[in-house]
């Protein structure tokens, strides 16, 4: 035949343009490990089974984690939420914390966002061309190893610092992270439902305002309560701002007077903005806000 295919092939290609095999060698020449000491073995199935043993240990740990800890989900994104403490995923924390350091932020932010990470990750990327010696053992190439150890220590340290700072911020602003808050609320709701016999997952019944025509309502507008607690006075659950509906079930009048007069958490004091009579009138009305008897 003109195209010179091997005669023992059963399928005859017309106009054979396949890449010719070079004599003997396969598509990839495996390196010869006979120079290495000890027993080498075939990849499949011998070695892969052993690697799979390690894989099974990892898989079991992974599935236990997945089943015991649900993936977190907070409240829907609300761009107007000013009190939210932004947090990247944990593996970005070191960079996030790094950018808060004095000499790589503000006027020097280019150092922090481009120069230093660029040098660090660039040299990691090009490590084989920077560390060109033949020596492979890490204790025989001290400069490379020390640079790596120092980078690792800084990364761990910055991550830890960032996390501690976040915990501290949560503490001083008295915030519970949303995803935890949401989970707790769901659990409470489920327990409540189990007690009262109402199936879980139903929205809480709306609590109407008591005496919605009361002159105290005018005070909520005058004092700008509505700015945070909303025009409908229902608060903003995801920002931890309580609703006025049914607030009388949660606080007594004395407690309400204290909260309005002195503030609480993120709520400012209204001592200077409202007179004592106005506070009295407002809190009397608030303490009447109870859910209707069932």
């Amino acid at each position, binding site marked *: 035949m003109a195209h010179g295919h091997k005669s023992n092939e*059963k399928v005859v290609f017309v106009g054979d343009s396949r890449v010719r095999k070079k004599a003997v060698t*396969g598509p990839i020449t495996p390196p010869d490990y006979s120079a290495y000491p000890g027993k080498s073995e075939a990849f499949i199935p011998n070695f892969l089974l052993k690697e799979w043993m390690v894989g099974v240990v990892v898989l079991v740990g992974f599935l236990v984690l997945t089943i015991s800890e649900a993936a977190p989900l907070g409240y829907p*994104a609300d761009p107007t939420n000013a009190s939210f403490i932004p947090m990247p995923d944990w593996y*970005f924390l070191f960079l996030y914390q790094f950018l808060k350091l004095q000499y790589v932020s503000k006027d020097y932010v280019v150092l922090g966002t481009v120069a230093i990470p660029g040098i660090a990750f660039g040299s990691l*990327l*090009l490590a084989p061309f920077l560390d060109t010696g033949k020596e492979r053992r890490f204790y025989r190439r001290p400069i490379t190893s020390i640079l790596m150890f120092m980078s690792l220590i800084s990364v761990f340290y910055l991550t830890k610092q960032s996390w501690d700072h976040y915990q501290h911020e949560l503490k001083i602003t008295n915030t519970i992270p949303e995803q935890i808050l949401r989970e707790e609320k769901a659990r409470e709701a489920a327990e409540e439902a189990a007690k009262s016999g109402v199936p879980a997952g139903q929205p809480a019944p709306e609590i109407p305002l008591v005496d919605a025509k009361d002159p105290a309502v005018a005070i909520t507008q005058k004092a700008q309560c509505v700015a945070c607690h909303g025009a409908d006075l229902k608060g903003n659950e995801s920002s931890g701002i309580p609703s006025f509906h049914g607030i009388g079930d949660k606080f007594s009048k004395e407690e309400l007077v204290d909260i309005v007069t002195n503030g609480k958490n993120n709520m400012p004091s209204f001592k200077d903005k409202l007179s004592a009579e106005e506070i009295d009138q407002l809190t009397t009305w608030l303490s009447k806000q109870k859910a209707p008897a069932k």
Partner: protein
Amino acid sequence: MMKGIYNWIDERLDITPMWRDVADHEVPEHVNPAHHFSAFVYCFGGLTFFITVIQILSGMFLTMYFVPDIINAYKSVDFLQHKVAFGGIVRGMHHWGASLVIVMMFLHTLRVFFTGSYKAPREMNWVVGMLIFFIMLGLGFTGYLLPWDNKAYFATKVGIQIAESVPYIGTYIKELMQGGEIVGAETLTRFFAIHVFFLPGALLALLAAHFFMIRKQGISGPL
């Protein structure tokens, strides 16, 4: 029957050498945890790939429910998490797997680094490996936004602000990432496309190169 089908295909495509090459290549003793327990450090690369496969599979199932728009993204994740049978498990695997893949890749990188395995002739494989590392970080960053809760929204906003501080091209990077003036509907669809199509495509190509090179060059010898 199966053998007949296999032979029929093999006659036409000559597939035997391909898989025999993968199956039969010798794995030396010094990387085998059955011979030396400490050789488990050589398993991190394989485990990274294993978790990556889990990520791809769980991610494929997540896209069956996820709706990439700002009204429904959160609702669809909420529905998936709390209403769909085993939805919480699948999302859990994708969520925790994302962290685990970073951990495994980090350990694999350190193993390669401290055994000096990146040295000649394996420089190119190290560079490809680092590119895979950056792609993975990109997948982590874009995937973080998708549930569209406050955590996602504000972290992305900060991330884009950081990108914006790059001199000269910062504002362009910002607009490219946001797809507009604000972090909003365009950002979400953009991140979704990057997370589901662009980066996984690049990842698979780089993984193919990574595996081809390790087969071609073989694993580095004992220290």
